[in-house]
């Protein structure tokens, strides 16, 4: 276990893109089975934070530990790390040249080395769970956005990850498709999946999160249980952000 005791622990994480500092000294602990929601304006560093956790980005300073293993610095087996961390993106990023079931089977078959039969069974179970087994042989382009995103989620789940990172996964969806995706995330939360979720869906965050982190200009300005952040935010920036969100009718 890490010194901080969290399943995921960020300690003083700083990330720069050229001149721009995207994350500045971020500390964050995520315990097993916790759901942590990152909120904040676009460009506040939510996505970058998620991408640092599975090493899609390298940090410039600070350390990150996942499941007791330090994943920043050299000599980290990134493939092994990513096998236990699932990530889902805003733009789905399904593989357009593969059928739905092949999308879900690919990583278990190639990265985990499961047999085709095993990966197929696993993929069919997962697709059945989200009610898309009848779409198994379709290509992603033929599915609705909500269906595609649910496939992207089970594609990540097919690796039996210990941690899921969700990067604004409903932001590219039509409003009427958002709920089918969020319902799936709720089920995941209920099943005890550890998750870090960057989101603009405040009601969802309020209902599902064990902890809310408000990011502003690369800094976690405030973190705490949802009741605290949404009802009595201490920081003036958090208050401003939330009142803008309320004006926009998203809470």
């Amino acid at each position, binding site marked *: 276990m890490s010194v901080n005791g969290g399943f995921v622990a960020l300690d003083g994480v700083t990330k720069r893109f050229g001149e721009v500092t995207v994350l500045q000294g971020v500390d964050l602990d995520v315990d097993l089975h916790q759901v942590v929601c990152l909120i904040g304006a676009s460009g506040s560093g939510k996505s970058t934070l998620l991408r640092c956790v599975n090493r899609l980005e390298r940090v410039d300073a600070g350390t990150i530990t996942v499941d007791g293993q330090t994943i920043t610095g050299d000599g980290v087996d990134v*493939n092994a790390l990513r096998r236990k961390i699932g990530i889902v993106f805003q733009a789905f*990023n399904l*593989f*357009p*040249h593969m059928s739905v079931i092949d999308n879900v089977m*690919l990583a278990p078959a*190639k990265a985990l080395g499961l047999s085709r039969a095993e990966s197929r069974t696993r993929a069919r179970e997962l697709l059945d769970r989200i009610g898309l087994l009848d779409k198994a042989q379709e290509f992603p382009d*033929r599915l609705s956005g909500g269906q595609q995103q649910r496939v992207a989620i089970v594609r*990540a789940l097919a690796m039996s990850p210990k941690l899921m990172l969700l990067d604004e996964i409903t932001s590219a969806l039509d409003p009427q498709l958002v709920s089918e995706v969020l319902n799936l995330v709720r089920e995941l939360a209920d099943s005890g999946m550890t998750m870090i979720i960057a989101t603009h869906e405040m009601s969802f965050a309020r209902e599902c999160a064990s902890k809310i982190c408000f990011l502003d200009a690369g800094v976690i300005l405030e973190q705490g249980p949802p009741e605290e952040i949404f009802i009595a935010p201490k920081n003036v920036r958090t208050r401003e952000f939330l009142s803008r969100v309320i004006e926009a009718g998203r809470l």
Partner: protein
Amino acid sequence: MGKFLHAYLSPLDIRRAMPQVWDGFQTNIKLMVIAELLVLVFALLIAVVRGLPGRAALPLRGVAIAYTDFFRGTPLILVAFVVALGLPSLRLAVISNQSLFTYGIVALTLVYTAYVTEVYRAGIESVHPSQRMAARSLGLSYTQTLRHVVLPQAIRRVIPPLLNDFIGLQKDTAIISVIGLTEATAQAGFYSNDYFNYAGYTVAAIFFVVLTIPFARFTDNIIKQRELRERAQLV
């Protein structure tokens, strides 16, 4: 007009030249099929090498770039001469003792691999980085990502330009006649020398055209089938 028709389109000469030119054209077909298969493989290899990340791969990338720059810029006729006349004069084991046919294959492959490498590379670069990212974030290695996610998409996209280069290659098999290989153009030349008539060239031209058209339709068809299967349909 009558003279023109007689020189190029005389029915008698066309009929008479046909078997002789066909005899030569079979060599063109063999040249193109073998060269195309080799080009497909080598060009993919070089394109992948050019895309290798990291400083360790720098020398390899350099070699790949030098190769494509050089052979894309060199006329095929020059390469054919250098290979077919130069290599035998070196009196080296194996490489100096090949048939003209083999040298023809080598020249075509050297030049067209350089073109097709660039075609593949454009295809590889056209696959959106988010696709690589998605694959890598699932735990697939660099090679697995390339093999299962990037290349399948890249190759599909470059089929039309690839076909274009292959039609170029098919026609350029005629250039290989300069090294003394008896293919369709050479046979047409022999015919014109023997009968003072150019219908042999007409026949050779027809053979080349007739070969490329079904090839093009076949590829169009593959692309269309795939669209039907994979893309959302307008209703």
